[in-house]
């Protein structure tokens, strides 16, 4: 029972991170109907930006500022770097291809992802870095949850992710720009005719999606320790899986899918096999894609001529 609860908390933490990254995939797919392959790399750069801020502030063992401020600054740094990369990707790699054939933006995205990976390799070398969270926040006894103790940092991650998702849901539902995002993802042409500035909506979508990915990157660094230049690839694949399982284009779907993938991965690692966790998660996706490509909360898309 203890073990099971521990794994549940693991799954919840991992799932919140996947959900944040999956939101970026899902939102971009919603407005542009295309898969941003480079999203995983945006997340990776977010993690490194957080690490960079931490290093500038003196590193985990010799912080020059209070811990809460350091954490806040790390998130701010990650959001700044990630959203800058996301917006630059949109402007320079995808916008020229709006009217191009279907394959063109996909290939461009694969190229951009490869370029960003190589840039990270050049800048940060192939060594992995550690946030050293136990030194940073040495609170061993977090909240006692039944028979187990949950680390404070995990609670922080789960709560932050939850708050961000609630804010996003509110924003998409009620704010002016949020409504425009929904309008564009429903029907781009009609939205443009109604006076929605489509270009601006797309930029905002990339901005928010990338910022969430940056936050996710820092969270992974805080909870699971190591960050490295290839971390974006597998995490990107899994987050995409989450977006698809939940129903791509749907925001609550991405959150649900992220949590499901997080639980699936955590229980697989614990009860079946840690070597094949990736295989099992991908197997899940393949089954899902084949049986219900529109996902749990998505609606099937009709092909129009």
């Amino acid at each position, binding site marked *: 029972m203890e073990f099971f609860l521990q794994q549940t908390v693991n799954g919840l933490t991992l799932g919140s991170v996947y959900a944040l990254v999956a939101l970026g995939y899902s939102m971009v797919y919603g407005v542009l109907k*295309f*898969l941003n392959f480079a999203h995983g790399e945006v997340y990776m750069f977010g993690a490194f930006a957080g690490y960079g801020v931490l290093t500038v502030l003196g590193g985990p063992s010799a912080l020059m500022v209070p811990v809460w401020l350091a954490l806040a600054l790390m998130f701010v740094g990650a959001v700044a770097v990630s959203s800058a990369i996301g917006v630059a990707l949109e402007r*320079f790699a995808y916008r020229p291809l709006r009217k*191009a054939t279907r394959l063109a933006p996909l*290939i461009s995205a*694969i*190229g951009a992802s490869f370029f960003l990976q190589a840039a990270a390799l050049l800048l940060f070398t192939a060594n992995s870095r550690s946030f050293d969270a136990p030194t940073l926040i040495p609170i061993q006894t977090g909240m006692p949850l039944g028979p187990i103790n949950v680390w404070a940092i995990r609670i922080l991650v789960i709560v932050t992710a939850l708050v961000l998702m609630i804010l996003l849901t509110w924003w998409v539902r009620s704010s002016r720009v949020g409504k425009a995002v929904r309008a564009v993802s429903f029907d781009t042409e009609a939205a443009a005719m109604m006076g929605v500035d489509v270009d601006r909506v797309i930029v905002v979508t990339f901005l928010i999606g990338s910022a969430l990915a940056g936050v996710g990157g820092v969270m992974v660094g805080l909870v699971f320790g190591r960050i490295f230049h290839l971390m974006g690839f597998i995490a990107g694949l899994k987050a995409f899986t989450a977006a*698809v399982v939940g129903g791509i284009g749907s925001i609550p779907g991405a959150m649900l899918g992220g949590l499901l993938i997080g639980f699936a991965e955590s229980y697989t690692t614990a009860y079946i*096999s840690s070597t094949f966790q990736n295989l099992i998660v991908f197997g899940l996706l393949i089954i899902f894609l084949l049986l219900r*490509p529109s996902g749990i909360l998505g609606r099937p898309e009709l092909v129009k001529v």
Partner: protein
Amino acid sequence: MSHIGVDRWVAESEDREEQYSGWTAPARRLIDKVPSGWRLGVFLGVVALYPFLVKPAGVRIGITVLLLALLALGLNVVVGWAGLLDLGYVAFYGFGAYFYAIVSSDQIGLHWPTWVAIPVVVAATAVLGALLSLPSRRLVGDYLAIMTLFFTQVFVEIVVNFERLPGVETDLTGGPNGIPGVAPWVLFGFEFNTFNRNFYLLLFLLVLLIVGLRNIDDSRTGRAWRALREDTLAAEHMTTPVNRLKMLAFVVGAAIAGLTGTIFASVQVGVFPNNFLLTFLITIYAALILGGLGSIPGVVLGAIAVAFTPEILRNPGVAGWLFYLGLVVLLVVVLKRWVRIVSVLAGLVAFGYLVRGLALSIWDQSILGTANDTFVSRMVDGWVLVLGDHQNIVSNYAFVLAVAFLLGVIATKGWWKAALLIPTVYLGILVWENKLALQPSVTRQLLFGGVLVVMMAVRPQGILGTRRVEIT
């Protein structure tokens, strides 16, 4: 421009007319004047002489080029003709290589004769291709791409962890260590155990494949594939058997990849999991996109360009020349007018000395390091800053700044563009001299990634491809 209701020859002649304008026009006109059989003959003649002109190491590079050309031609069937974005292609190549290695090495003690092994391996890879084509019945575009990408990932994971799979008793794949000691091809008592022999074997197969693919391209199936690529829905309404054609494309691509895999295993005398990673898939795609999706000579040309790149980058002298030559070409193409080119060059020289002077007056001579030991690097040594102790950190910042300035150059016009080019080019040279020239493999990755993005925006049809029309 629409091709509906236009006779194919007329349609293509319009395309040809269009290609006769612009900067590639003279080359294209020249190429189109020569009949294709002659072109292939000339190509064959030049390539056949290649091993006599270079050292054995050069022949090894030639083999890499030919392997890549074969792979790119196979991928061209799936992506270029049928329009299915297949990211699982490298797994077929790996499957062929591993299958051949398992049945022709001491791994499990099997030593099949080549004439048995090859047909079996190719057939098995083709069956695998047919299986992977099944999802393409339901999934298109992004979904198919991601699904096939999972396939690549699953392949690598299975190969690396084969021993640990449930119910497995013999270690077929050798895990992360791969399979060493693979026997070479032996046909009619002739052993393909030298670089030269393998080179001609590959050349023979390449010519065979080019002739075969040309015939397919002009056939009923080839036209049906193109119909599928341009508009699947319309093709289906015209009673084209869409699912069967998709499967056929996957099968042909997989079979070519499997065959190439067997030769690769035999040439390398072993197979290792890291031969079949995503990096290599991107390399094949770079060749395909650079040369031109759908065009056979384009794909071969792209493979030559892409396969030679790492070899060029490995030689710092040649790489330096090419880098500076590339910069000059870039300046000319971007600025067009000679007034601007001259002013940018003058500004660049002044800017370089200014930065150097400022840096040396703030700190002192001790920040300087030694220049790379090549002719070009020594030439620019007194001008660009080549750093010592802080080389790494400074060139990191310079790299980020250079990318940012480059994006600025793309986004601006006229004199602004010219003005922004000065710091961009200076930072580019700084990064090159301090970092990129020393790390050829990273430089190659940056280059291939950049090529994919730039080609899609500037010339999606590649160097020799034909423009595609997508009707929506």
